[in-house]
């Protein structure tokens, strides 16, 4: 898998604030890449430098093998949904997007067709002749996404694409992003960790301008070595010992959410596997675990591979979970 975006030793400072500090990572081709981080971590700054809106103090960014300091060479190949950019309020949205396509060298007719198709993708075709000032916040967000999808860009950067959207619209955008993955590499920044885990195959986590973790979602969530298990009732210590004695089970921990800690009655467990033995694979360990649980009259309610991205995110950023 080749890399379409390569970031090396990227640094940016705003006055006393070090927004990015020697950040380096790569975005693989045809992946959906999630950029995570708490507020102020540097996600938008990073996207802005990739798109050459901001100038880096040090380091380089290459997109499709082209240094972004020569951003004009990427015209039509790289597009972005900027987080807080505003459209011109008193101009019909069709005119604004047609203008973007005219800049790409399309005729008026082609531009119009492409724009209407793009607006249709985000459910805004019937609003094409409206002015931006008459659209709701969610509609403006969808309009931003429509302009990012215009043409056939090879790399698309989406800064908080579903922020402010209702659940149905957010789902629509996620589906659209998944469809586009066949033709483009998409980088998404988001606070919604469940969304990123569902959508992305690679992630990077930024914290206070530093890169704290980067890799595939499977690697980061230890998908092949850890399982989340929800049970019908809490396990006794003896039952835990019995499960731990199964070959291939390294340990079983109670998942300590805030609510579980308060009640001391957690029914959620994290099973860590030890697959070092040659004859063992995940199924060869999980199947006996489930059988044993049923023998103990404990019903498994939910089984999922790996940690949640949220757990990993909170661990590496040192943040506290807000969940009750």
């Amino acid at each position: 898998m080749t890399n379409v975006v390569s970031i090396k030793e990227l640094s940016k400072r705003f006055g006393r604030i070090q927004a990015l500090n020697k950040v380096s990572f790569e975005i693989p081709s045809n992946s959906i890449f999630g950029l995570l981080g708490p507020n102020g971590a540097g996600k938008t700054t990073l996207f802005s430098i990739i798109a050459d809106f901001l100038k880096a103090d040090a380091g380089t960014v290459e997109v499709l093998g082209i240094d972004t300091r020569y951003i004009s060479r990427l015209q039509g190949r790289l597009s972005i949904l900027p987080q807080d950019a505003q459209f011109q309020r008193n101009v019909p949205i069709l005119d604004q997007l047609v203008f973007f396509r005219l800049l790409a060298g399309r005729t008026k007719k082609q531009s119009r067709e492409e724009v209407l198709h793009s607006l249709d993708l985000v459910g805004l075709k019937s609003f094409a002749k409206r002015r931006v000032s008459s659209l709701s916040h969610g509609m403006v967000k969808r309009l931003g996404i429509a302009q990012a999808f215009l043409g056939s860009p090879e790399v698309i950067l989406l800064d908080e694409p579903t922020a402010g959207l209702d659940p149905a619209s957010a789902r629509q955008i996620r589906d659209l992003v998944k469809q586009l993955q066949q033709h483009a590499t998409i980088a998404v920044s988001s606070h919604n960790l469940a969304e990123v885990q569902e959508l992305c195959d690679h992630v990077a986590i930024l914290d206070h301008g530093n890169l704290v973790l980067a890799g595939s979602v499977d690697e980061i969530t230890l998908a092949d070595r850890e399982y989340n298990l929800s049970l019908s009732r809490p396990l006794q210590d003896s039952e835990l010992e019995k499960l731990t004695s199964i070959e291939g089970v390294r340990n079983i921990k109670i998942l300590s959410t805030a609510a579980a800690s308060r009640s001391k009655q957690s029914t959620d467990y994290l099973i860590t596997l030890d697959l070092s033995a040659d004859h063992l694979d995940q199924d060869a360990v999980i199947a006996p675990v489930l059988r044993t649980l049923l023998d103990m009259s404990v019903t498994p309610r939910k089984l999922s591979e790996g940690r949640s991205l949220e757990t990993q995110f909170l661990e590496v950023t040192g943040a506290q979970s807000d969940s009750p």
Partner: protein
Amino acid sequence: MNLKTINIAHVRLISLYWSRYAVRSGSGLVYLMIALVFGLSVAHIIIMPVERLMALQKKQIGQENPQLIRKTIIDIGQPIIQFVLGVKSFEQVTKEAASTQMHRQNDTSSTAHSGNNNSAFDPWTNFLIEKKPALLSVIFLILIFGMPFVISFLAFNQISGDVQNHGLRYLLLRTERCNIFFGRFIGTTFFSTAVMAIIVATITFYLGMKVRIYPASDLAIWAVQGFLALAILMVPYIAVCSLISASVDSPFLSLVLAKVVIAGVLLMAILGGFAWKPAKYILYALPWGWQNNLIHPAPAHWLGAVIASLAYTAFFLTLGYIRFETRDL
């Protein structure tokens, strides 16, 4: 600097879009209104005494007296022209105006002094008063003085507004910064030129219809020359606004700075000149010191003023472009 990537097709598209946007966003309409009100008010103030005189003559003697009308026009226009061109000081102009008034009161044979002083005019004043339609000359001189203050209402927001709301970010991956900067400058200049054309055409048409003392061909030729002078004059001031607009993020600050810079240079030169004579050369920081030459009778002076305007434009645009190319957006 990355001018090699300038794309003429993009500059054309951006300038056209920007001109249309100037109307749609309202800022262009605001400028059009202010410029029209200013231009037509100046024309009204200058033309009104002549119209009154014509009406009075018609009422008293049943017909107009072109000779007397011409004298009145010279009485009105001469002090303004001589003061604006710097031929006479403010004291001299007011003194002469007072003496003319006294003379008029003592001498009811109104044509007696008609044209008496014309031979004493310097060649430039003579050209504007005698060789060209004087009413239009006076109006042009006042517009040349006043329009630089008005142009900032149109040109202040070429860049700054879209930097503040990050709207430029939708464009930056679709075209080069140089195309945006120069496209918007050209779009603004195009709009300003169109407004100048409307103002000059309206004034000339009104003058031609109401004050029928000038041949239509003379009026038309002088109107075209005056329009050219105004259109060329606006270009360096738009470039100053481009520089300011590319340097600050706030449209309001950009407008205030444009006003302060354009008026400040003139004020500093005038007030500074009282205290220390060489300070009057501050005037040349902007085209203030050259701009009247755009209606000079000598082609060399006119050409010099045009070249100076272009030089100022190039200078301010270069500074503005360097700032825009290298800044965070």
